[in-house]
């Protein structure tokens, strides 16, 4: 865990250095009349002018961080950072509800499929095919059916969560050694006992691998769903709004995307933490 943190930290550093390096070579001239409050006038004229490195396409990252401290809009006393943090929490709540519902749904479906080959053959192809339907396509109709509300957004997040959990749990619940099942049979155990004592514990590594994927997927679902859902308080709407004002202040969109990424990573990290607490050194299953 600590190694990973160091790794991500140094990676972020490399990205920031490369970012400013590109701007140093091909951005627009910099001028800081009073650098670091020292009264020194810093001016730099990059030797090239690359379109992708200008301040519209690639703002200075310190400006992106800086804009987080400024008001959301003129005259507002709420800073962009506070606003985005609030929006992130709002979106996370929607995603988390969808995540829990979707995970439970996936667990129930997988349990059904594992106990009935017929149900598996009849329905699993459609569970798989459901993922070829882009969620943005379903979102407007879900919103039409359930109204522009948090419920619609939760349903969308659920839809993106249940699939990885279902597929992974079918594999996980089937993963016990056949001899372990024979052993249970020799004890004349009930199906419920076999499920509780053998199948479910054996499936935990698979479950967490799926939950890590589902964590991000539920955030994606919530962000996408907020647009047609007409939810004004979350990150999805913030991205759409700041996208429209990109020409005047690109830093705001970058800020919203930065916060979305941090939200995804945080949710992932929470599940990752739960995983290491639950599995306690049992080997994790690689994804896919």
């Amino acid at each position, binding site marked *: 865990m600590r190694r*990973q943190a160091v*790794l*991500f930290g140094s*990676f972020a550093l490399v990205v920031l250095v490369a970012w400013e390096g590109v701007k140093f070579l091909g951005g627009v001239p910099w001028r800081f009349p009073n650098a670091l409050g020292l009264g020194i006038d810093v001016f730099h004229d990059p030797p090239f002018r690359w379109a*992708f490195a200008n301040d*519209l*396409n690639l703002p200075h990252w310190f400006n992106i961080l800086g804009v987080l401290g400024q008001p959301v809009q003129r005259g507002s006393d709420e800073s962009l950072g506070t606003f985005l943090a609030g929006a992130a929490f709002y979106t996370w709540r929607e995603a988390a509800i969808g995540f829990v519902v979707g995970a439970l749904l996936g667990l129930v479906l997988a349990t059904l499929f594992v106990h009935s080959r*017929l149900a598996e*053959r*009849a*329905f699993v*192809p*459609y569970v798989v*095919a459901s*993922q*070829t*339907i*882009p*969620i*943005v*396509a*379903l979102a*407007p*109709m879900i919103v*039409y*059916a359930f109204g522009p509300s948090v419920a619609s957004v939760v349903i969308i997040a659920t839809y993106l969560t249940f699939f990885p959990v279902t597929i992974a749990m079918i594999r996980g619940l089937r993963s016990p050694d056949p001899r372990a099942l024979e052993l249970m049979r020799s004890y004349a155990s009930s199906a419920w006992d076999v499920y509780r004592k053998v199948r479910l514990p054996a499936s935990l590594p698979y479950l967490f691998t799926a939950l*890590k*994927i589902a*964590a*991000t997927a539920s*955030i*994606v679902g919530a*962000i*996408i769903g907020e*647009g*047609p859902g007409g939810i004004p308080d979350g*990150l999805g709407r913030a*991205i*759409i709004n700041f*996208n429209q004002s*990109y020409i005047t202040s*690109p830093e705001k*969109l*970058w800020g*919203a*995307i930065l916060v*979305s*990424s941090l*939200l*995804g*990573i945080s*949710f*992932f*990290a929470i599940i990752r933490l739960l995983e290491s607490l639950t599995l306690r050194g049992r080997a994790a299953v*690689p*994804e*896919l």
Partner: protein
Amino acid sequence: MSAAAARPAASGSIAMSRWLRRIRWYLPAVLVFVGTIALWELVVQNIDLRGLPLPAPSEIAGALSDSWGAGRWPIGKAAAATLFEALGGLAIGTFAGVVVAGLTARFVTARELLLPLAIGASAVPIIAFAPLMNNWFGVLNPLSKMMIVAVLVFFPVVVNVTRGLTSVEPAALELMRSYAASDWSILWQVRVPNALPYFFTALKVGSTLALIGAIVGEYFGGSSDVLGRVIVQSASALRFDVTWAAIVVGAVSGIVSYLAIAAVERIVIPWHASQRAGEP
């Protein structure tokens, strides 16, 4: 597994019974499909469902044939444009992913640094970057959609292909070493063939991601004759028959690209265990 068991069945009756078994295997899924469509049609014809965006299957089929090439929402043209974005992005992302995987597999330190990052990238909601791609590459340029698809596809390809190139049996490497084989022979004789199944797994995952990514990219703006816009606009005009027709076309495109990749996989790696398992 004995050698005899693997010999192809020569007699016609065995081939026949294999077909029967296959039909019986897929029958439940087919019945569910037919049953759902029939029930749906029946319910919509007899019960007033105006509160729900569920037109009858026959209406959806009608909308599909009416607006395939004409009208306000030409679905056929839109599907072609979206498929172009998806496949273009899939190609770019796969190419970049294979190149990076090839480089990282070669250098242990590069791999140890990059692989956790590539896995960690799956924690980032990449579609949030779609508006940026629109701003970078031009909202009307199909390249902006291709790039978001490429980024989505890139990471699974890197992770899988790197795994495939490196998860070689240690004894196979010892064997090659005992032949004093060059690194180049080891790469081409051992690592690349070993990575092929992983590559196809990533490509199949990528094919579904590609279509979803393209449609999400369109959702954040762009030219109007694409599936994403057709879906959003027809839904807001409450023409759900057109919406569903577009969704069906999108889903079928996704399934067809998946199956096409699976078919190529069957031809390229018939020797892999995944190609023998799961058959009825």
